[in-house]
C-alpha cells in the first residue's frame, strides 16, 4: 500500500469516432481535459502536474508532452510523457497514482489520446517488434491475437462461436455508452458471417480504429474528499511487461495477466475475485480474450471461460458484468484506451455510469493490454484502502 491514499475525482472523454477531421490532436486532447475539469469542478489552475501519453508512430509527432501543451493545459507546469504501447493508457493511470501517492503532487491530470485516423496502425505496430527475429513474421497486432486464440482453441476446444458470444455482449453493452464509437447490436450469426481477418478472428470479433482522448484527475486524500463526495479510491496497481520477443510468449494463456492479477489481489486482500469484484473494464481488443483472460485473472478455472460467458454472468445484470462500456471492441483510440477503462471503472465506483451503471459497485478492476502480450491492472474501490 502507498503512503498516501489516492482517488480519482473526475473523468472526461471525447465522443469517440473513427475519424475526427474537425479537430487536430491538441483540440481533441482539450475536449477531454475540459470535460474532466468540469466533472471535478476544478480549473486548470488547480492542477499540479500533467501526465500524458500516446504512441508516437501513429501521429508522427515527436515530444508529444511538449507539443500538446496548448491542449493539455501544461503551460508552466510539470509535464511528463509515459508510453508503453497498447498499455499506455493504463500505464498513465498507474503513473498518476504513484505521483500523487509519493507526495510530489496533490492533483494530477492524466491524459491518453490517439488519432488513429492519421496513422497506418498496422504499419506502426509492426515496428514494435525485433527487426531481425520478429518483424518479418508478425504483422501488426492481429497476428499475435490470432495465434493466441488458435493456441487456446487447440488446448481447450473453444470455438469461434464462443468468441462471437463475447462480441455480441460487448457490442450490446456499447449501445448504453454515448461515448462509444460502434453502437450497434449484432447477432452471433452476423459475427460469424463477417469477413475473416486472421483465422479465427472475424471483423466483428475485433476492435476498430478510433480518434479519441480521455482525461482523468487524481487527487490525494485531503483534496479528494473536498472535490467529490464519491471518490474512486485506487487500492493498488500491478503490471507485467514480461516479454520482449513474441517467440517467448506462452501462447494460449496470458501469463502477464495471471501474474499481475495475483500481485494486485494479494496487495488488496482479494481472495475470491469472482465474488469480491463487482465489475471489470477489461482492455480486451478482440472477443476471444474475453474468454481466455478471465481465466488468467482467476475469475474462472482454466478452460471454463466460454462456459462462464455463455451463462450470461458477464452480461449487464449478471454476476460479474464485464465491459459495461462496450469495451475496446466498440472503441479503441489506442493511447487513450487503457485510461478509458480506468475512467469507466471510476464511473462505476462513483455511481456516475448512467445507462451503463452496474448497481452497488464496491470493487472494480480496470486493465490495459499491449506491447508483447503485456498487462496493466488497477483495483478501484468505493471504500478507502488501508494504508
Amino acid at each position, binding site marked *: 500500500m502507498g*503512503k*498516501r491514499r489516492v482517488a480519482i475525482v473526475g473523468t472526461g472523454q471525447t465522443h469517440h469516432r473513427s475519424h475526427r477531421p474537425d479537430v487536430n490532436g491538441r483540440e481533441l486532447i482539450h475536449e477531454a481535459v475540459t470535460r474532466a475539469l468540469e466533472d471535478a469542478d476544478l480549473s486548470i489552475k488547480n492542477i499540479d502536474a500533467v501526465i500524458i501519453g500516446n504512441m508516437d508512430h501513429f501521429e508522427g509527432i515527436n515530444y508529444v*508532452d511538449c507539443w500538446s501543451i496548448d491542449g493539455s493545459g501544461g503551460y508552466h507546469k*510539470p509535464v511528463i510523457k509515459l*508510453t*508503453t504501447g497498447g498499455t499506455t493508457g493504463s500505464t498513465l493511470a498507474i503513473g498518476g497514482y504513484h505521483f500523487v501517492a509519493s507526495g510530489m503532487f496533490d492533483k494530477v491530470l492524466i491524459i491518453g489520446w490517439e488519432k488513429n485516423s492519421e496513422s497506418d496502425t498496422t504499419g506502426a505496430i509492426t515496428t514494435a517488434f525485433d527487426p531481425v527475429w520478429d518483424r518479418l513474421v508478425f504483422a501488426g497486432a492481429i497476428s499475435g491475437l490470432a495465434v493466441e486464440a488458435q493456441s487456446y482453441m487447440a488446448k481447450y476446444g473453444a470455438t469461434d462461436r464462443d468468441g462471437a458470444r463475447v462480441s455480441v455482449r460487448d457490442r450490446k453493452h456499447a449501445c448504453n455508452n454515448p461515448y462509444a464509437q460502434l453502437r450497434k447490436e449484432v447477432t452471433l450469426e452476423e459475427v460469424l458471417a463477417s469477413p475473416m481477418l486472421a483465422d479465427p478472428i472475424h471483423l466483428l470479433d475485433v476492435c476498430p480504429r478510433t480518434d479519441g482522448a480521455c482525461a482523468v484527475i487524481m487527487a490525494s486524500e485531503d483534496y479528494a474528499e473536498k472535490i467529490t463526495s464519491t471518490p474512486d479510491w485506487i487500492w493498488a496497481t500491478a503490471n507485467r511487461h514480461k516479454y520482449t520477443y513474441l517467440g517467448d510468449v506462452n501462447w494460449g494463456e496470458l501469463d502477464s495477466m495471471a501474474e499481475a492479477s495475483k500481485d494486485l489481489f494479494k496487495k488488496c486482500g482479494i481472495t475470491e475475485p469472482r465474488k469480491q469484484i463487482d465489475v471489470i473494464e477489461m482492455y480486451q481488443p478482440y472477443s476471444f480474450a474475453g474468454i481466455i483472460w478471465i481465466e488468467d485473472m482467476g475469475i474462472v478455472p482454466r478452460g471454463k471461460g466460454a462456459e462462464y460467458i455463455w451463462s450470461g454472468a458477464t452480461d449487464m445484470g449478471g454476476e460479474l458484468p464485464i465491459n459495461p462500456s462496450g469495451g475496446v471492441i466498440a472503441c479503441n483510440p489506442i493511447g487513450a484506451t487503457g485510461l478509458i477503462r480506468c475512467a469507466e471503472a471510476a464511473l462505476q465506483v462513483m455511481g456516475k455510469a448512467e445507462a451503463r451503471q452496474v448497481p452497488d459497485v464496491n470493487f472494480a478492476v480496470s486493465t490495459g493490454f499491449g506491447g508483447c502480450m503485456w498487462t496493466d491492472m488497477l483495483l478501484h474501490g468505493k471504500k478507502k484502502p488501508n494504508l
Partner: protein
Amino acid sequence: MEAAIIGVGMTTIEKSKVGETYADLAWEAVNKALNDAGLGIDDIDNVITTSSDFWDGRTISCMAVGDASGVRYKNCSAVEGDGTFGAAYALARSLSGDYKTTLVTAHSKGSESISSIITNAAFDPIYERGLGMDMISACAMQARAYMHATGTTPEQLALVSCKNHKNAKDNPYAQLPMDITVKDVLSSEMIADPLHKLDCSPVSDGCCAIIIANADFVKKIKAKPVWIKGVAFCSDAYFMGDRDLSKAKALEEAAKKAYSMAGITNPQNEINVAEIYDAFTYQELMWIEGLGLAEYGKAGLMLEKGIFNRDGKLPVNPSGGLLSGHPVIAAGLYRIAEVVLQLRGEAGGRQVNAKRGVAHGVNGLCGQSHCVWVLDKEK
C-alpha cells in the same frame, strides 16, 4: 526527501556502438549499476526504462530493453523523454511506499538515427515542419536571441567548448576528449549561424542506469547513498513565438522549486558542482543562469574568470558534458550519474570538491521542458 541513489552504471559514450543492440547497452549499464550498489537483480522490485520511439525508430521502444533491464517478473513502466524525467517517475514510485528499489535505464543510439528528420518531427506539422526546421536551426535562433539579449560573445560560447572537451580528457566514458582553442571552435565549420561545429554536441551511442531506493532500504545496505534533496520539472509554451527564447523561464521555475525542496536559498554558494544539459555551447551558459548559478547575462563573464572550470569555485560539467558525448535520451541520466560519482568522491581524474550538486535534463526544442535534480552527500 526519503530517497537516495544507491548505484550508477554507464556504458562508454561512443560515436557508434555498431556491434551492440539496445538490449546489449542496457544489459551492460544495468549490471554495472547493480554491481555498484552491491545488489542482484532480485533486490530490485520495479523498473523504469526511458527511451524514445522516434530516436529508436521503433514503436514501443521500451520493449527492446525490457528483458535486458530485468522487467520480466517485476512491476515496471516506461517514460519517453530525457532520462532525468524517467528518474523523476522512478523517484515517485520509490516515495509512494509501494516500492523499495527502482532501477532506471535510459538509452540512445544516435548512430542509427537521423537527427534532423527526428527533431523536425517535433515541430508543428502544419505551421512549422514544412519550413525545414530542426533542432540545430531552432537552437541557432535561440543562441542568437540569447546573445542579442545578453551581449554574450561567440568567443565566450567557444570557451564552453574548450572547457568541456578538456574536462572530457579525464572522463573514461566521454566520446570527445580534446584540447582545443577558442580559435579552433570559431574556425570550425558553420553549421547554423552562430553555431559552429564545435559549438554542437556530437552524435552518440550510450546507456546509463541508476538505482533509486527509499530511506528504509538504504539503511540495510553497504552502498554509499547519495541523497535526493529536490526534484522538479516544468514545461514552457510550445510555439517558439509564444516564448522569449532568450530566457529559460521553465528552468527558473523548476530550479526554484527543486531548491526550495532542498532548503537552498543561495544556489551560487550552496551548489558545489553542476552537470548541465549543454547540447550546444550557448545552452550551458543559458542553463547556468536559469539554474540561478549566475545572474542573467553574466555566465559568459564568469566563465572567462574560470569560475566554472574544474578547479573553479563552481565547476560545471567536469565530465565534459554533452559536448563531449550526447546519447540523447540518456544524456540527462548520465548527468545524474556523474553528480553521484562526484559526491561519492569517486570521479577519478575529473573529481572536484563537492558536497552538494545539481543535475539537469531537457525535453523538447530549445529547452521547452526542464528537469532539475539536487543531490547531496548527506541526508
